[in-house]
């Protein structure tokens, strides 16, 4: 029978910098042997709540009881010692080290030979027990995102925690990997651990959880056992709107704006071909969605077209003009805009201010002396048009929640009024309400420009795309108009038949 392991009473937290009230009297309980999800929109207070539980943030008021005792964590490592571990959203691993070395980093006893051997045995036992197989001697840089996530899970598990928190773990991984992750959840809860699953994805929360807490504006507004609720009810509660599953309607298509011919693009290793002889064209009014399992060349394709990666052979034509291997600066001048899926590394500068992230193109195209008054006004207007929640435009971009940053970046690219727009993972990190908004915006925009959406989420591709391309190992393995009745499994079968070997 499940026992209460963590009781949270009336937690509140206001951030001084922005004055945002992130938590407003949140009260909830987690039980051992249960999977509980914390479901809410962007900036609803999910992450803040978790940061308080592991001691990264201090609450203004409220209290926590851990296994019946008063619990005041001093920081993530003290929380982990006490028995609460977190798998963070942005994974904190060192890619130059091997998997095992990364695990050793959290290991506190002195590192005599015997201790290491013993530690290795323990890690192997943990991996065995929870079926989290990892190549211990491989460097982390060669691991996929899902494998890195497993590494974080193993790291947390070797401390035998009572509670494991997963912060938005499904954002960056594929459908199959998601199933595996949920399998891990179940195994953990069967061992009597409490699993806390933070997410904004309704269906995922519903499908895997025993208990669901809905959080909105910093307060818990719904508490359910799974059997007491339904997806529809949750949706209403989360966003306050009805769900509509309609796909964006196909509009009449116009002229070809962007054409890619036999394109091969260099990968991260010199001479490696990440994209191989890819050809397609995009018309105004026809939204092209490029999908496939992450790491099969989609990201490189976007970066290659946009001049951020070397094109080895083939051509890119923008409005009939050859723009192969042109720099982003010149491509922007010709009317191409792009949002790379590498949000932190390329698409934004987290240490720069919100304003600088927004106005950079205006500054670069502007006068020699910066017109700060005009730019401030421009930034504020754009942010309010797209409903970005922020403290001050002079706060660093890292003060924004993931979804709000996403909106900011989209607004920046769209505001440059391009003739062709490449969007890497535009739906990543957005909750139901903002997903709908995004789709509505895309529908409107595609009458004016050619849009290519790169998404590893095939279901999302089927929702927004008029034409679907699926990539595998750098090649296009599927390219067809999106017809009603086309499903994920249907496409999967077609690809399987075509390639014959991949599972």
């Amino acid at each position, binding site marked *: 029978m499940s026992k209460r392991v963590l009781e949270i009473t009336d937690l509140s937290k206001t951030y001084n910098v922005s004055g945002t009230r992130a938590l407003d009297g949140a009260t909830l309980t987690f039980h051992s042997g249960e999977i509980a999800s914390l479901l809410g929109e962007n900036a609803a207070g999910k992450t803040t709540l978790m940061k308080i539980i592991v001691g990264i943030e201090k609450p203004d008021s409220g209290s926590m009881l851990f296994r019946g005792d008063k619990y005041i964590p001093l920081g993530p490592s003290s929380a982990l010692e006490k028995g609460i571990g977190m798998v963070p959203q942005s994974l904190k691993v060192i890619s130059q080290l091997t998997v095992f070395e990364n695990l050793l980093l959290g290991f506190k006893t002195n590192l005599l030979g015997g201790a290491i051997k013993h530690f290795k045995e323990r890690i192997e036992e943990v991996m065995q027990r929870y079926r989290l197989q990892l190549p211990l001697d491989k460097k982390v840089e060669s691991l996929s995102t899902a494998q890195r996530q497993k590494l974080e899970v193993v790291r947390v598990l070797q401390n035998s925690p009572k509670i494991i928190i997963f912060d938005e773990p499904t954002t960056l991984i594929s459908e199959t990997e998601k199933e595996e992750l949920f399998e891990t959840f179940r195994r953990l809860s069967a061992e009597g651990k409490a699993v806390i699953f933070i997410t904004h994805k309704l269906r995922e929360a519903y499908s895997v959880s025993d208990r669901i807490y809905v959080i909105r504006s910093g307060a818990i507004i719904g508490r359910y056992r799974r059997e007491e609720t339904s997806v529809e009810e949750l949706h209403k509660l989360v966003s306050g709107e009805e769900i509509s599953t309609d796909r964006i309607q196909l509009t009449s298509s116009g002229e070809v704006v962007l054409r890619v011919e036999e394109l091969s693009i260099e990968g991260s290793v010199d001479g490696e071909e990440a994209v191989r002889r890819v050809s397609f064209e995009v018309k105004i009014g026809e939204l092209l969605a490029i999908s496939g399992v992450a790491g099969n060349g989609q990201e490189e394709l976007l970066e290659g077209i946009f001049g951020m990666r070397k094109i080895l052979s083939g051509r890119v034509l923008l409005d009939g003009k050859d723009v192969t291997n042109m720099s982003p600066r010149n491509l922007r001048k010709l009317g191409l805009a792009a949002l790379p899926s590498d949000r932190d590394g390329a698409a934004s500068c987290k240490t720069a201010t919100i304003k600088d992230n927004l106005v950079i193109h205006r500054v670069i195209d502007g*006068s020699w002396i910066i017109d700060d008054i005009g730019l401030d006004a421009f930034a504020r207007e754009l942010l309010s048009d797209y409903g970005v929640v922020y403290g001050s435009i002079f706060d660093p971009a*890292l003060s924004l929640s993931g979804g709000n940053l996403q909106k900011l970046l989209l607004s920046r690219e769209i505001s440059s009024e391009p003739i062709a727009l490449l969007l890497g993972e535009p739906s990543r990190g957005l909750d139901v309400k903002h997903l709908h908004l995004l789709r509505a915006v895309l529908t409107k925009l595609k009458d004016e420009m050619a849009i290519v959406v790169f998404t590893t989420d095939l279901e999302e591709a089927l929702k927004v795309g008029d034409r679907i391309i699926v990539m595998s190992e750098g090649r296009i393995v599927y390219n067809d108009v999106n017809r009603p009745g086309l499903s994920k499994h249907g496409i999967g079968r077609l690809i399987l038949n075509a390639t014959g070997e991949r599972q």
Partner: protein
Amino acid sequence: MIRRSGANGRSFIVIALALAAGLVLVLIMSEEPLNATRAFFLSVFSNRFYFGNLLAYSIPLILTGLAASFAFTSSCFNLGIEGQVYLGALAGTAAGTLLFGRLSGVAGIFVMIIVSFLFGATAAGISALLKTRLGVNELISSLLLSNGLVLVVDYFIEGPLNDRPSGLAATVSLPDEFRFERLMSPSNLHSGIFFSIVAAIILWFFLFRTREGFKMRIAGMNRRFAYYSGVDTKKVIFWSLFVSGGLASTAGIVDVIGIHGRVMRGFSSGYGWNGIAIALVARNHPLMVIPAALFFAYLESGAQIASLEANVTTEVAKIAQAVIFFLVTAEALIPEGFWRKRYA
């Protein structure tokens, strides 16, 4: 603009710790601790001579601090400042010697500074080109190049430009017309201080109020983002190192014009490294470089006065500076969240 809320608090602690280190050393090493402490910390304010010298010593440090900040702002590392200061001093002095009798005082000084700037800028520009064309790490190339340049300058001081009659390891002296005016005699303070302050203000305006400065700051924070957003990052790297090297060289020539009147072997030793430490304390902010440089000059002057008046070795200042260098480079010692306001 970049938020720097955390910088002041942390720099303040660093400075306080450095002063404490200085105090402890003075107390340990001196036989008359009270007198030594007074000499080290207070004597400098007791007369025009000491105070003027403090200000004079800060002039080249402001310029080398600006030189380091300017490169750091775009995430480039100019470790060749030592050599560039020395080279600039020599090139400017040589130009001054050649120009004697052909140009008036002000014009002559102007040309000397320009020539000096171009020499240092070229030296740093070579490292920049090696980086953008061949991917050579500028940190290493600028350091090695600078070490070589020091030897070349030494050769000119001992050889072609040597002031033979004097028997010194120094070049011939500049004519009096090509010297800055003294401001607080009998101290060394000269009008070059206005040059360094104006340089700081111009750099501040450039970095925070102009398009090119914006590009430089963004490229410094995230080069890939800058490139994606349309900044020509190679150009940014080149110009930031070019200007950095030039500024470093002006530190050398301004010091020569203002104080020594000639280039003496090794006269600028330490200006470059201190400039780097000053940039770190000032968090690369051009206006903050001025107080940071004054503080370094204060430590140096205090140590010198203490050695005269209270028999404390001048190495005390070096150790206090080393403490600063250590603390600012070991930022990790002070948890980030301790100073910076936290974000969701």
